[in-house]
């Protein structure tokens, strides 16, 4: 294959000139002027926008850097009376106070009950020596009366045996009376009188036998442990049991009383602590209160009495707007006003001379962030 010749394209014949160099008719000149105007406006606009973007970027970087290193900022927080946390807090507080009242009533009832039980116990304990004395007295009496009655009982038995022998002769006497009457030796009246006397003797013997039985019974009572004595012992045991039960009940009641007292103390302490909480203050106070969230990194500047500054653009041209009134120790979590990340910290109460500063995104504690 033949080698093709080296070719060079002829130089460009057309001369490309810039639009402004071409001599154009009037219409085109007008068109070019229009373009020029639009282009000038566009360039002014574009340069302005680019400078604004540049300023925006630098400002953004500055703000980010500033808040990354600054350690004296705080974020004002406006707590409304209808704030959910405040309302919740208030509700819990009311519930706690109600619980205290209930506990107080319970404590009083329990205290009264314990006093009553103690009184009852004292009465029961007072009965015990009397019962003991009565039992001893009775035992002593029995010791004396028992043998005497026993002797009398023996004597009575002997008397009755003698009487019985005598009564055996009465049947013969009665038969003789009937014979004498039949034979007419005695009148009927005399016979009746004599028979009545015989019968009276027999009645006397029966009475004597009854007395003997009763006496024997009395001897048994006085010389052995009978049911009567046992009843007394049962009563004594019941008395002691009742005292013991009262002791237990009193002990339990006293412990419960102590526990309830402790619970009341705890609730009082909790309420006292709660009263130091911003949400309680917010919910209970009639006046507007100002709070601010302080991250833990800025803790060093959150001291009561420290000055509070509010700044334009969140960092410059700062002015004094108040001071730190109170620091609340309980932990709070909040969203970082710039970085929008969750951070930990606590709340402070502010005394603000300029209430509108409560609406600022950030305020600064103790010192101006950039010296002016």
């Amino acid at each position, binding site marked *: 294959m033949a080698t093709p010749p080296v070719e060079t394209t002829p130089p460009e014949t057309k001369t*490309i000139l810039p639009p402004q160099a071409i001599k154009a008719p009037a219409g085109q000149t007008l068109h070019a002027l229009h373009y020029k105007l639009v282009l000038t406006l566009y360039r002014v606009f574009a340069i302005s926008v680019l400078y604004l973007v540049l300023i925006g970027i630098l400002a953004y970087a500055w703000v980010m850097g500033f808040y990354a290193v600054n350690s004296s900022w705080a974020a004002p927080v406006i707590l409304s009376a209808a704030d959910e946390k405040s309302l919740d807090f208030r509700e819990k507080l009311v519930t706690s106070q109600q619980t205290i009242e209930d506990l107080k009533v319970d404590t009083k009832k329990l205290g009264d009950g314990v006093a009553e039980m103690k009184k009852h116990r004292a009465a029961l304990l007072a009965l015990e020596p009397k019962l003991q004395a009565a039992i001893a007295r009775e035992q002593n009496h029995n010791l004396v009366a028992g043998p005497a009655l026993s002797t009398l009982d023996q004597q009575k038995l002997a008397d009755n045996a003698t009487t019985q022998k005598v009564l055996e002769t009465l049947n013969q006497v009665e038969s003789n009376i009937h014979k004498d009457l039949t034979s007419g030796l005695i009148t009927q009246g005399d016979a009746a009188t004599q028979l009545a006397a015989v019968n009276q003797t027999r009645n006397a013997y029966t009475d004597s036998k009854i007395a003997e039985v009763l006496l024997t019974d009395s001897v048994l009572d006085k010389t052995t442990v009978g049911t009567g004595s046992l009843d007394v012992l049962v009563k004594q045991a019941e008395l002691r049991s009742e005292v013991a039960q009262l002791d237990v009940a009193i002990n339990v009641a006293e412990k419960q009383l102590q526990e309830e007292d402790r619970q009341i103390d705890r609730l009082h302490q909790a309420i006292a602590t709660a009263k130091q909480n911003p949400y309680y203050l917010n919910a209970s106070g009639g006046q507007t209160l100002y709070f601010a969230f302080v991250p833990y990194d800025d803790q060093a500047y959150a001291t009561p009495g420290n000055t509070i500054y509010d700044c334009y653009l969140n960092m410059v041209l700062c002015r004094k707007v108040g001071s730190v009134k109170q620091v609340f120790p309980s932990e709070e979590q909040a969203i970082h006003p710039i970085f929008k990340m969750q951070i930990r910290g606590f709340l402070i109460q502010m005394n603000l001379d300029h209430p509108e500063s409560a609406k600022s995104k950030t305020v600064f504690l103790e010192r101006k962030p950039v010296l002016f």
Partner: protein
Amino acid sequence: MAPILLWLILILCLLISVVKYLMGIIMRFSFPSTKARKDYTYEPAVSVLMPCYNEGKTVYETIESISKSNYPNEKFEVIAQDDCSADDSYEWMLKAQRDFTNIRIRTGRNAVNSGKARSVCNALQHSASEIIISIDSDCIFHPDAIRELTACFAEPRMGSVGGRVGVRNPNDSVITAIQTLIYYSAFQLYKIPENWTRSICCISGCLFAIRRELLLEIEPAIRARNWFGVPVNQGEDRFLTHQTLLRGYGTYINNDALCWTTVPNTLSVLFKQQLRWRRSIVRDFFFTMKTLPQHVWKLHPNTVFTLVLTPVGALVGLLVVVNMLTQDPLSWTGPVPLITALAIGAVLSWVVKRYSAKEAVRHPLAFAAYVAWSFVSSLFLTPLALCTMDSADWGTRTIAAVEREQEVPLGNATR
């Protein structure tokens, strides 16, 4: 209300992006119609136009790679157009012309520095071929690139065909590693659904084939591009693709047509390149909005979606990042974006290593840096692009540009 709307739009854009990637995966393996019918017997005359500015010896290597193409030598030519390079690029072009005599090479120089688009147009004047292939002068081409591109023109309504651009320097730095993965996924996945409807919205200027008559039709529009009188010499590839679509032709990326480019390996160069691209996207968006009814009636909905939602996504992304920085400044520092980027990077790295070993990224974990880059990109590129629409600065050849500033009235860049 506004933030919700913003998030909705962002989610929509993200969804569309994700859906496009997912569709890309599905279509790649399941839809034969996403691939154009190729006819390798179709061998039209081809002119490879190569505008060049300050490329030095690279231009010689580029021409060398073209000279090794598997395409009948008598059917293609290289027209190298130097755009008044300040270095020895033109000498290298002449040397290549002398050395690679197996193909026809024509060289030329612009009278004044005119920019890439106009250099292509100038080169076009010396071409008579049926198919024009515009290439970048810093790329290395696969021997089959020309054959692959021309084979796609067998479809009669095919207007423009692009090739896949691979990265020559994937392991130069973290920045090149990121770009390697992004380039690969963009060509292999993101553009596949667009291929399905033959409606690629931006064919890379690195390897861009177009029918001659179509380019001639569009050429006046290319030359006339301006921003309120300021000539526009950037984003000609996006403009050409868009114009092709509006003229009722199809556009397509043939991933078998390969070329390799050297991507920026420093953040500043990458930023300038991305800024230039973002300007093109914004400019294209304005044009789309200006002629929206025409787009809606003429183009496939898939094309309109891509043309509208891609730039809207960039705008909304900016607003979302600003919103995020002001509302929740530290949200982006969480582990989720990092882990997501690492996971995507690991998967992409494995895929690239598996299917394109030449581009294998040695440190796939470097993709995590994409989080930081996407942040910078979303935040700065769009506003900067919106405010510098009148800029003709190419951005990546600045030293030489300063030297020649006096004689470059239309802009100082060619690529």
